[in-house]
C-alpha cells in the first residue's frame, strides 16, 4: 500500500539477478515527496540491488513498486525515465565517448523544450557549460558526477535514484554533491539515496532505511537514527553522531 504523501512506494519486494536466488526479501520503503530517504547497510546488504530493481534493471519476482500510486513494477527502464524516475548509477554513469552536450541531448531528445532545458542545465552546472564540446571522458571525477546528475535532471523527474554519488570523490566534492542533492528537493524532486558515507548522508536525509542481508532492519527519521546509540554502535563505527 502507498503511504500518504509518498511519491514512491516499495512494497514487500523480492528481487535478484538469478531466478530462484533473491537478494532482496520482502523489502519495503516509502519516499515522501520533496524529501531524501537514504538506504544504508553493510556491504552485500542489497542496497544497490534495491535501487536497480526500482530502476527496472534487476528482475522483480514478487512485491510491488508504485510511483504516485501507479504500479510500475517490471516496467522497462527506458519507459521509467519517461514516467519520471531517473537513476544515477554509482560508476559508469556517463557516456565517455559522447561529448558533454551529446550526453545531455541524448536524454533530452524527445522533449519539445529540449533546447531551453539544455540552457537551464548549463546554467545550473557552469563547469559543464564550459566543457560542453569536450568528450565526457575528459571530465574530472566531480564533473562526471555532475554530468550524471544533470542527465538525471534533464528528464525533469519526480524521483531520482542515486547510487553512492559520493563514491570516488574527494571529501570536498562529496560534500558538494550531497549538498546539491539536498537543494534539489526544494525544486520538487524526491531522492532515494544509497550511500556508504553514512554520517554525511544522514545529515542531509529526512528518513533512513537500514538494510542487512536483503531485508529491512531498522528505519526512522534520519536525525533520530543518527543519534541512536544502537545504530551508532552498529552502523556508524561505534560512535554516535554528534557524541562528544
Amino acid at each position, binding site marked *: 500500500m502507498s503511504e500518504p504523501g509518498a511519491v514512491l512506494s516499495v512494497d514487500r519486494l523480492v528481487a535478484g539477478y538469478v531466478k530462484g536466488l533473491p537478494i532482496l526479501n520482502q523489502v519495503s520503503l516509502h519516499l515522501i515527496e520533496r524529501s531524501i530517504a537514504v538506504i544504508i547497510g553493510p556491504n552485500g546488504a542489497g542496497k544497490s540491488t534495491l535501487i536497480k530493481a526500482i530502476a527496472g534493471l534487476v528482475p522483480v519476482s514478487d512485491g510491488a513498486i508504485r510511483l504516485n500510486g501507479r504500479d510500475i513494477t517490471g516496467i522497462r527502464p527506458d519507459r521509467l525515465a519517461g514516467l519520471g524516475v531517473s537513476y544515477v548509477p554509482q560508476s559508469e554513469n556517463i557516456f565517455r*565517448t559522447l561529448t558533454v552536450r551529446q550526453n545531455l541531448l541524448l536524454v533530452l531528445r524527445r522533449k519539445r523544450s529540449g533546447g531551453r532545458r539544455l540552457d537551464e542545465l548549463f546554467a545550473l552546472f557552469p563547469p559543464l557549460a564550459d566543457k560542453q564540446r569536450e568528450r565526457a571522458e575528459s571530465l574530472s571525477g566531480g564533473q562526471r558526477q555532475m554530468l550524471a546528475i544533470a542527465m538525471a535532471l534533464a528528464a525533469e523527474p519526480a524521483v531520482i535514484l542515486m547510487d553512492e554519488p559520493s563514491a570516488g570523490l574527494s571529501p570536498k566534492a562529496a560534500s558538494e554533491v550531497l549538498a546539491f542533492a539536498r537543494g534539489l528537493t526544494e525544486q520538487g524532486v524526491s531522492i532515494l539515496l544509497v550511500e556508504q558515507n553514512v554520517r554525511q548522508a544522514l545529515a542531509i536525509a529526512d528518513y533512513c532505511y537500514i538494510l542487512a542481508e536483503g531485508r529491512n532492519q531498522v528505519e526512522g527519521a534520519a536525525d533520530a537514527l543518527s543519534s541512536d546509540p544502537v545504530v551508532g554502535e552498529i552502523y556508524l563505527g561505534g560512535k554516535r553522531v554528534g557524541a562528544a
Partner: protein
Amino acid sequence: MIQALLDGVLVGSVVSLGAIGLTMIMHLLRFANFSHAELLSIGAYAALVFDGLFAAAVPAAKAAVGPLSLTWTLFLAIIAAMALTGLSAVVIDRLVFKRIRETAGPLSMVFASFGVALIIRSALSLVFGLKPRLYTDDIVFAVTISSDPQLLVKPDQVFVFGAAVAIMLALHLVLSRTTFGYALRAVAENPSLAQVAGVRLSTVIAVTWVVGGALAGAAGVFHALDNQVSPAIGHNFVLAVFAATIVGGIGSVYGAVLGGFLVGIAFGLALAIMPPGYSPAMPFLIILGVLFIRPQGVFGEQR
C-alpha cells in the same frame, strides 16, 4: 605498384561498407557474426531481381547512366536491395539470433552464425543456380587516367568508390550529428545506462541490423557491379570484413572504414608482388599481425 594501390583502394571501399555493420553488431551484441558477409550476397542478388522487375516495368529506364555500365533501373535496384538486405538482417536476427541470445551465450550465437551463413549460401544457390550472373552484358572499358605511371580505372569503379564514400559520410553525419546517432553510440558503449537514459534497446538493435544489412547489401552490389553476381560473394568476403573489423578495432565504425581500406590495399599489393594463389592469405596475415601488435585494433579500446 601504384595501379595495385589504386585497385586496393577501390576494393577497400567495398570491404569497408561490409565491415561497418559487422563491427557494430559485434560490439553491440558481443558475438562474431560469421553470416554477416552473406548479406553481401543477398544484396547482390536482390539488386539483380529488382533490376529485372524495374526494367520490365519501365523499359526506357534500362539505359546506361552516362559512361557507366550501371543503368537507371539498377541504380534504383541498389536502393531497393539495400532496403531488402537491411530487412533480411532484422528477420534473421528475430528468427535466429534473438532467440539464442535470450537463452544461451555468445558462443552459441557464433556457431549459429556459421549455420545461417551456410543456409543463406545454399538457398541462393538453389534459387539462382551456381552459374555467375552479370548485371549487364555491356562491356565498359577502363579509362587511362595517367600514362606515366600508367593508371587505368573503369567508370564503374569511380562510381562505386564515390557512392561508398558518400554512404560512409552519410553514416558519419548520422552518428555524429543526430540524437539517434548518439543513441546508437550510447547503446554500444553501455547498454544498461542507455536504457536508463530512455533509449529502447530493442529498437536500437533492430536499427543496427537494418543499417549494417543495408551497407552490406550495397557492398555486395558494388562488388558484383565490377565482377559477377554469385552465391560465393559472401564466402569470398568473410575474412576480409573480419580482418577490417579487427584492424579498426571492434565497435569502431571509423576503424572499420580504415580497416577496410587497409585490407583492400594489402590485397591489391599482394596481387602485385606475390603469386595470385597467395593473396587470399592476406586477411589471415593481417589479422595475426594486428592481434600480435595491437589486439584492440587501431581505434579499439583496451579491455
